[in-house]
């Protein structure tokens, strides 16, 4: 957070990977008092122009990874993280921070975290709805979050919140400035709004 001291508004860029509607997320980030820009393609100037990069993802793992590559984000994201800058992945945008997914075994993820996504062990998939987070983080402890997913990261030493659906999976991960949320903060009511304010603000 030190880098942000002295600046009144955090500058947040939302990555548009052509994978779903961004309206709710954009509304939530603006409501958090951030300066918001939506970007389709990266530009090295972004390293100095923005403080936070938010990467939402919907659809299949391989599709989101292909968009990351086709739009030129792959190397940029690795560079962004190497510079210690904040990256927030949401839903499949969190999953692609890992090495791969059973959804599309041939697709390779960004590999910023070790581990893979596995199919949820529950007769009703996708998991759609609200679940209470098991978290030691004050920002998430006992809060209810909105999930829409069929796959999830089951094991990660950087897990910050867990949820059960058939078996336990990682609802959130964090290592330094690298954040991942399997649930949708932009659809998680007042709690979600405050969480977005916390990670973007």
């Amino acid at each position: 957070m030190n880098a942000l001291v002295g600046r009144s508004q955090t500058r947040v860029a939302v990555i548009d990977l052509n994978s779903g509607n961004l309206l709710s997320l954009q509304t939530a980030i603006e409501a958090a008092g951030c300066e918001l820009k939506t970007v389709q393609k990266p530009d090295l100037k972004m390293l100095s122009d923005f403080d936070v990069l938010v990467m939402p993802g919907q659809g299949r793992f391989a599709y989101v990874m292909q968009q990351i590559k086709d739009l030129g984000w792959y190397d940029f994201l690795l560079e962004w993280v190497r510079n210690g800058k904040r990256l927030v992945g949401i839903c499949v945008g969190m999953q692609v921070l890992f090495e791969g997914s059973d959804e599309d075994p041939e697709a390779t993820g960004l590999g910023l975290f070790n581990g893979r996504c596995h199919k949820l062990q529950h007769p009703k998939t996708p998991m759609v709805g609200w679940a209470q987070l098991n978290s030691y983080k004050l920002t998430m402890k006992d809060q209810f979050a909105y999930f829409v997913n069929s796959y999830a990261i089951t094991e990660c030493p950087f897990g910050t919140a867990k949820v059960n659906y058939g078996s336990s999976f990682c609802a959130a991960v964090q290592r330094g400035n690298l954040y991942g949320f399997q649930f949708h903060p932009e659809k998680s009511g007042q709690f979600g709004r405050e969480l977005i304010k916390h990670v973007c603000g």
Partner: protein
Amino acid sequence: MYVDDENSNSDLTARVIPCLDVAYGRVVKGTNFKQLLDMGDPVELAKLYEQQGADELVFLDIKASVDGQESALEMVRQVACELSIPFAVGGGIKTLDDVHKFFHAGADKVTLNTMAVEKPALINEISTQYGSQSIVVAVDVNHEADGSLAIYTHGGSRRVDVDYHQWIQQVVDRGCGEILLTAMHKDGTGSGFDTDLLAKFGADFPVQVIASGGAKGPQDFLDAIHAGADAVLAAGLFHRGEYTVGEIKSFLIDNNIKIRKTGC
């Protein structure tokens, strides 16, 4: 599945969903799908229900074909900017392009009724393109005088020659993510959800079932969840102010149902 129990392998909560039937830009309510009464502004009601703790909202544009699609899209955009909970929209959706417009306007899910029956391949198309979580099939079922179960379309006005059990199986096979099961013979009667119908789905049924039609009070919601509903939907009792969403949810929590708590 939603009984609060330490040994449960699911943290998923049962959802309480107010339904807003929209006609001519206003929320309306009818009895047995007829006799429309004005219940207020959709965006204002949506905000009120979110504050009360609604887990999700469903907007059904029941006069969509008369009213035109543009007004419905504008309402969806306004709702998407005002809400921070998910919502589904239905009514007047005929093509994949219509679906795209609603998602682009900010809807999280679409609900198909008439078109699901008339063009079932649309269920597959939506599921393939946007994922099964994005599609809810609204099954309007009526208990006929001869004791059979009949499927209706066109806002409950037209009986179609489709077998109820085969239809349920078909919409699942085609990739719908949720079934919105409206018992027309219960709708607007206040005699409770049809728990017999709900009980037939069972815990291993592969998609979630939203119970609709007949809610009068908190006990009806509890009975529906015990019978097997994953979510419970009601309109009139919320619009008329007989119960707030919060009151229904408090009752369910007091009866040991896993429910999302708000305002704490």
